């Protein structure tokens, strides 16, 4: 495939890559820092493990799905809020490093927000807060963003506070229907969407030399050693199941075993360069990977900032729709403040700058149109750079019907099933 590229382009690319490596924007830096955080977290989780042993295995909170009435909220906000989110998942002022929209919330409400990027991985974060939740203590967080299947588990274990919808009127008024009454949290009793996206395939057509349409294209021997998969079990297994015509939510253990065999066979013949977390981004952006499983919003960012050749596709065989949600852990110390912040993000004026920066699907009505309007306004003012960027975001700020027709949700796994899936998947990722 390289033969088709002329010499000039290759040299230009080499220079561009060399230069690009010196240019680390704040966004890229955060992604690297996030990876560092993942590794240092292994030390942090030791207290969690100690605590896990020091207490009775089944804590007070875990005595069954707690379907209680919404707890009474204090009448006045406490003026403080501890908010844990994922790295690079909020609008940041690149010059000052501040969070403009969070600052706006602080100015409007007088609530001081401690914003941390403590969530690197659903399971890892669960491991960190579970001992406190099981013991009936506060986790120190008032508002946390977690993925849909983890929300389902947290509800099942009684680890989340019920929401008082009277404090979140913007949700009923402004949420898209797709995000109301979701499979993991009927009637949004415990959670409302933060941003969502699709797990599909990202690829560089210049390097693959052809369009990538389905998951099985990733297994094409022509790309041996230059394909990436996620080390995250649910996404990878679900895409593999879909490629075998199985709906992930209905998968039996035999079908999961067959999917494992399919992936293992490809892994053993060296098809995959590696299994990645967030770091797949750099590998795809700099051409080490020609095609990889990818998250939709990442590819939007990549097109804007790192490699405009990269394309995102929902595989013909099917992609996964995931929703990251705001939720309030049990015994949170400032629950009313957390409600106020949830309500704040469902105001169009605040949802737009968030999505314009992060590039994922917004659950708020009208965001896609507003991003488009902002792009036109920037174009009118001859700010081409902003206009180009916003047009890319606008195109992906809400999934179109064609994409939605072909996306699926995760299976609700109970504890035993989850261990079985993990054990099978571990065979694939560790050679």
């Amino acid at each position, binding site marked *: 495939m390289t033969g088709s590229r002329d010499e000039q382009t290759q040299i230009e*690319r*080499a220079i561009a890559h*060399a230069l690009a490596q010196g240019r680390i924007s704040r966004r890229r830096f955060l992604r690297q820092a996030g*990876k560092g955080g993942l590794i240092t977290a292994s030390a942090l*989780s030791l207290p969690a493990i100690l605590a896990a042993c020091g207490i009775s295995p089944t804590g007070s909170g875990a005595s069954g799905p707690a379907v209680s009435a919404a707890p009474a909220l204090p009448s006045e906000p406490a003026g403080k809020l501890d908010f844990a989110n994922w790295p690079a998942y909020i609008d940041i002022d690149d010059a000052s490093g501040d969070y403009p929209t969070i600052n706006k919330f602080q100015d409007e409400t007088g609530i001081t927000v401690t914003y941390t990027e403590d969530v690197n*991985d659903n399971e890892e974060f669960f491991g960190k807060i579970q001992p406190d939740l099981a013991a009936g203590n506060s986790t120190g967080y008032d508002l946390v963003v977690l993925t849909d299947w983890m929300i389902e588990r947290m509800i099942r*274990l009684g680890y989340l506070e019920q929401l008082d919808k009277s404090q979140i009127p913007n949700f009923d008024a402004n949420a898209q229907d797709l995000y109301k009454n979701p499979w993991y949290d009927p009637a949004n009793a415990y959670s409302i969407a933060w941003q969502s996206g699709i797990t599909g395939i990202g690829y560089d057509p210049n390097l693959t030399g052809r369009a990538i349409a389905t998951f099985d294209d990733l297994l094409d021997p022509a790309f041996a050693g230059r394909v990436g998969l996620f080390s995250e079990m649910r996404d990878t297994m679900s895409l593999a199941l879909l490629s075998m015509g199985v709906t992930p939510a209905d998968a039996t253990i035999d079908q999961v075993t067959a999917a494992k065999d399919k992936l293992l066979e490809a*892994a053993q013949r060296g098809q995959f360069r590696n299994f990645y977390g967030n770091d797949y981004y750099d590998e795809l952006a700099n051409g080490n990977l020609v095609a990889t499983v990818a998250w939709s919003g990442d590819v939007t960012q990549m097109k804007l900032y790192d490699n405009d050749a990269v394309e995102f596709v929902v595989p013909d065989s099917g992609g996964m729709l995931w929703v990251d949600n705001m939720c309030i852990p049990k015994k949170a110390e400032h629950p009313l403040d957390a409600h106020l912040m949830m309500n704040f993000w469902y105001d169009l004026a605040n949802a737009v700058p968030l999505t314009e920066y992060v590039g994922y699907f917004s659950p708020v009505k009208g965001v896609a149109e507003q991003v488009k309007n902002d792009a036109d306004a920037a174009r009118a003012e001859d700010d081409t750079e902003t206009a180009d960027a916003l047009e890319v975001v606008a195109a992906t700020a809400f999934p179109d019907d064609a994409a939605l027709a072909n996306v699926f949700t995760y299976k609700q796994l109970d504890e035993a099933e989850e261990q079985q899936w993990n054990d099978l998947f571990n065979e694939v*990722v560790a050679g």
Partner: protein
Amino acid sequence: MLPRRLRWLTPYLFLLPGGIWLLVFFLVPMLVMASVSLQTGSLGTGFVQSWNFGIYPEAIGNWSTQFIRSIWYALVVTGVTMLIGYPLAYTIAFRGGRFKNILLLLVILPFFTSFIIRTLSWKLILADNGFLLGSLKEIGLLSDSFRLIATPVAVISGITYNFLPFVVLPLYVALEKIDYRLVEAATDLYASRFQAFRRVTLPLSMPGVFAATLLTFIPAVGDFVNAAILGSRDTTMIGNIIQRLFLNNNNYPEAAALSFVLMAAILVLIGIYARVVGAAELTR
């Protein structure tokens, strides 16, 4: 000042801070981990102390490939760091002159930035189409599909790079203490320079060699950062498995069991090594 009749307490008082430290941060976690390894359950439903000793053979059976690979990588790393580090430490100790301190500073200079940042920067330097490999491919010295990242070479090189100072420093200390007049005496007695090295310098530096190998081999076996950043599926080390079981699968019992097996394996290997080196010392 203690009264004279309580003077005997002094050494114990000096031991106290270190002893408490070890008790709280080593012994207690070890006991907790031992207990965790013999529990069954999951984070959601809770772990129960079930004395499931079967987890040990199961863990070894599941991950023997990664165990053997880790020990093999660590042996290679120890050998390579010694081959690079010994001449370096020797030169600094005997030929460093007034530059000794600067040279030593240069050896530890990499520690001024984070271990992870340094490893990540190797990933950028050695990227398939990065400045180095990209240029070599451009002029036709390497085939287009050649790569270093995601190969065992990258992982072993990364560990070697990160642990080299741990070899140089103890070797330097051991070599620096050697009275160079002993070497001169050997040459006066008609030893060749090589014989003087083999019969005088090397034996006298053995405590440094012993310390350096331990300081490299033990952390290298358990290293997971290099394999995670520079490696691939086929370079997975036991540290990566333990990390994955602990953090991604919340499978604490198997992870704890694996940690103990790793510790036991290292102790046995070190025990054998200590006996061989000790025996060599005695028979000399």
